[in-house]
């Protein structure tokens, strides 16, 4: 069976309802007539603000029931243009389900259309306003000049107080077709177009990381010249770990007051947003830094590291 979620609220749970067999068949027909109106449930390229974000449809498995054979396991509808939008019809089906939780207020909000983040807003070169349109939802404060976040003693010095960090919001450079698949997260963090798809901390310095832990990869970073304290006109990065599986990096790309960070997931495009779509910057001590953003399985925050170069060579 299919569950529909009206994606519109931020803190409270979104309204959901289960489609009847008749409605499910009609949805399949409507989607089949115009499949281009589907989009992934979450994608970095499609980011939304607070408010109506379309409808999420997912297969809900129950004992003994076959999964839908004609639709993706989960998808979004309503965020792409369509001649006969399935989203409008789908939202209308909520009236048939007494407990859907879709109120007139929500219907009116949905009728105003998709609340999308303008891509230009998620750009450190633009004035920062409102965290890309999203509320800060995490419990942990960002590491900030105002004293938020965890203690800095175990995670590197205070990057906001270095005074001479090197900044370059150059995701576009790393995202050129000739570069994007040939440089990984460590290349982007090091601001080095090394053409090394799998750059590894310590390999350039002769002591490759021996374990995928904060300790193991930190040893590698030090071999590559990264240090714990501020460096003159230097790069500032943060390292996180998917324990025993993988490492990932973020680079500070602008200075105060917004302190934007960027990162590059593997061979995919570099960006300035996290896995929840938050633009990674802050205002007046609130907002996002690598310590409090959505990082998926990369749960271990290892700390901040510095190098007195605008490019740190990696291999």
């Amino acid at each position, binding site marked *: 069976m299919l569950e529909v979620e009206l994606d519109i609220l931020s803190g409270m749970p979104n309204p959901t309802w289960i489609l009847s067999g008749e409605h499910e068949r009609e949805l399949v027909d409507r989607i*089949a007539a115009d*499949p*281009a109106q*589907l*989009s*992934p*449930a*979450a*994608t*970095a*390229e*499609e980011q939304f603000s607070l408010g109506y974000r379309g409808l999420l449809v997912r*297969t809900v*498995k129950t004992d003994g029931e076959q*999964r*839908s*054979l*004609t*639709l*993706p*396991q*989960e*998808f979004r509808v309503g965020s792409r243009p369509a001649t006969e939008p399935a989203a409008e019809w789908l939202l209308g089906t909520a009236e048939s389900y007494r407990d859907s939780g879709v109120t007139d207020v929500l219907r009116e909000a949905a009728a105003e259309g998709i609340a999308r983040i303008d891509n230009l807003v998620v750009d450190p070169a633009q004035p920062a306003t409102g965290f890309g349109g999203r509320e800060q939802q995490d419990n942990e404060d960002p590491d900030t000049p105002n004293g938020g976040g965890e203690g800095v003693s175990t995670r590197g010095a205070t990057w906001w107080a270095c005074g001479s960090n090197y900044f370059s919001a150059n995701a576009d450079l790393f995202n050129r077709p000739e570069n994007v698949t040939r440089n*990984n*997260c*460590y290349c982007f963090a090091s601001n080095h177009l090394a053409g090394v*798809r*799998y*750059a*590894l*901390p310590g390999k350039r310095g002769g002591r490759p990381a021996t374990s*995928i832990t904060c300790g193991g990869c930190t040893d590698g970073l030090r071999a590559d010249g990264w240090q714990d304290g501020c460096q003159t006109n230097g790069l500032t990065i943060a390292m996180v770990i*998917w324990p025993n*599986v*993988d*490492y*990932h*990096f973020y680079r500070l790309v602008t200075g105060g007051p917004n302190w934007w960070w960027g990162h*590059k*997931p*593997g*061979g*995919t*495009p570099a*960006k300035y947003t996290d*896995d929840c779509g938050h633009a990674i910057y802050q205002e007046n001590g609130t907002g996002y830094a690598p310590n409090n953003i959505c*990082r*998926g*399985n*990369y749960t271990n925050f290892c700390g901040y590291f510095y190098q007195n170069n605008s490019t740190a060579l990696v291999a």
Partner: protein
Amino acid sequence: MSGKTVVELDIFSGRPNPTWTLPDAEATAFRERLDALAGTASGQVANNLGYRGFVVRTGDEVVTVQRGLVRRADGGTTTYGTDPNRDLEQWLLDSGKSSLDPDLVTTVEHELGG
């Protein structure tokens, strides 16, 4: 289409992603499944951390299979298709299960709703 068909599980950021080569019979089966998919006008491939689907390379063609979307890029041509119920994604996972770390298989199966 000629040459080996190599599948990459796109899941890591820093480390090398796991890859494996499809035997000829499986490469043919993959091609048949791919050609049978319905097309769609456009699509957007996500670049989140963690599981990002599969990338299948045969000669100059690069096929990305991710969350119900299939992107085929060959030279300067890019087309999109839909992967109903993520069957092709599941099929690609199955093709590499014997060589993949069981924890990674579990991670991907969780993503696929298994």
